[in-house]
């Protein structure tokens, strides 16, 4: 039985016999070569489910929005499963209300090319799941850190490069919408009293938004790359995310989305944390 058949069969079973009210997975998109999230609530609809290298969207992002409906099953590749862990950590979903259908992932293709965030993926298999659909895939050797070249630039060059990048931002907040970490009922960019972030697309306001977005990702981002893929202006948002993930790992030895028992790195502390930058 192919992986897809197995997925559809399990989805049907879960919906008919096991008290699951919704299976979150993927269906083929309208354009060829794309897939889009599918929310299957009737067993007869389970046949729309697919899984292959078009399935990029991080499905964990939908969990906080649908959890009130009852028991949810979710198709999770490596990064989705890490986002589920991140949500469990932050008590945004209840493990008992979840059935995690793990799938191994060989990387997401974007217009025929391996998505940037997938080139450095070290968790192609789910880190947490109730059952595997299909076999686990082989670990890949991650490509060298794409930040290396950027970090060699001088501070002024880095500022210029980032500024040029974020100046294109149209503040559509697609990056926030697709992000499993962004579940705040009122996002800091939407708060109007006080109004935290300038609403204009001036360079300074855009940079403020992107720096703060990065701060909010620190110790939480699982580097699924949804934000970069979701950006209509093609801004490399992962650049910020990678850097904060890197510093959190270096300084606090923490990697997001691996251990549900652990506090998020920035919600915890160690009295012996380094403080060489503090006078």
């Amino acid at each position, binding site marked *: 039985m192919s992986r897809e058949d197995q997925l559809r069969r399990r989805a049907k079973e879960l919906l008919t016999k096991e008290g699951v009210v919704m299976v979150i997975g993927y269906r083929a998109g309208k354009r060829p070569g794309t897939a889009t999230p599918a929310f299957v609530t009737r067993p007869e609809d389970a046949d729309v489910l697919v899984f292959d290298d078009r399935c990029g969207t991080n499905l964990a992002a939908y969990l906080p929005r649908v959890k009130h409906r009852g028991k949810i099953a979710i198709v999770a590749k490596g990064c989705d499963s890490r986002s589920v862990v991140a949500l469990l950590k932050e008590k945004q979903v209840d493990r008992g209300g979840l059935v995690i259908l793990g799938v191994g992932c060989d990387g997401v293709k974007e217009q025929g090319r391996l998505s940037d965030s997938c080139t450095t993926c070290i968790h192609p298999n789910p880190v947490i799941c109730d059952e595997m659909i299909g076999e686990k895939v082989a670990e890949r050797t991650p490509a060298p850190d794409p930040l290396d070249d950027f970090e060699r630039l001088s501070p002024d060059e880095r500022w210029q490069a980032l500024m040029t990048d974020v100046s294109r931002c149209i503040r559509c907040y697609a990056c926030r919408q697709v992000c499993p970490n962004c579940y705040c009922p009122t996002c800091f960019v939407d708060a109007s009293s006080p109004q935290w972030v300038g609403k204009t697309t*001036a360079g300074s306001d855009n940079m*403020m938004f992107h*720096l703060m977005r990065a701060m909010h990702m*620190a*110790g939480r981002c699982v580097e699924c790359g949804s934000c970069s893929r979701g950006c209509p202006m093609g801004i490399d948002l992962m650049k910020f995310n990678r850097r904060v993930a890197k510093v959190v790992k270096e*300084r606090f030895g923490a990697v997001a989305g691996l251990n549900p028992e652990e506090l998020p790195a*920035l919600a915890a502390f160690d009295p012996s944390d380094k403080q060489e930058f503090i006078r």
Partner: protein
Amino acid sequence: MTAGGEFSPKIVAFLCNWCSYAGADLAGISRIQYPPSIRVIRVPCSGRVDPFYILKALQSGADGVLISGCHPGDCHYLTGNYVARRRFAVLNDLLGFAGIDPGRVSFSWVSAAEGERFAEVVREVTEKVRLLGPNRKLLKEEVA
């Protein structure tokens, strides 16, 4: 801000109510001299300082920002400054990564008994920011 041709920086200081604010107070009542470059904002704890405050200060025209709280272990709320320390470490790194001069934003621990130390920190921070010159990078033009 430029007075008489020489640049004198404008620095926003977030001081924790229990230690650094009292330290600044002690510096004052002890008549210890330090540059009049800081504008103090009193916060309940260094853990109350959202990284956004720091960026917002820079965006709104500050040339530098100083954040000061209780020494580790001495937090009035026991662990506020430990949590803040992690947050500041990430922010500090992120600012450097984005190419904002590391000297713009300074962090220090000053206790209520360290009036002289507070003055010293302000002198040092002022000098650092003075050498960097006016903040241009995050500044929002309309505000300036």
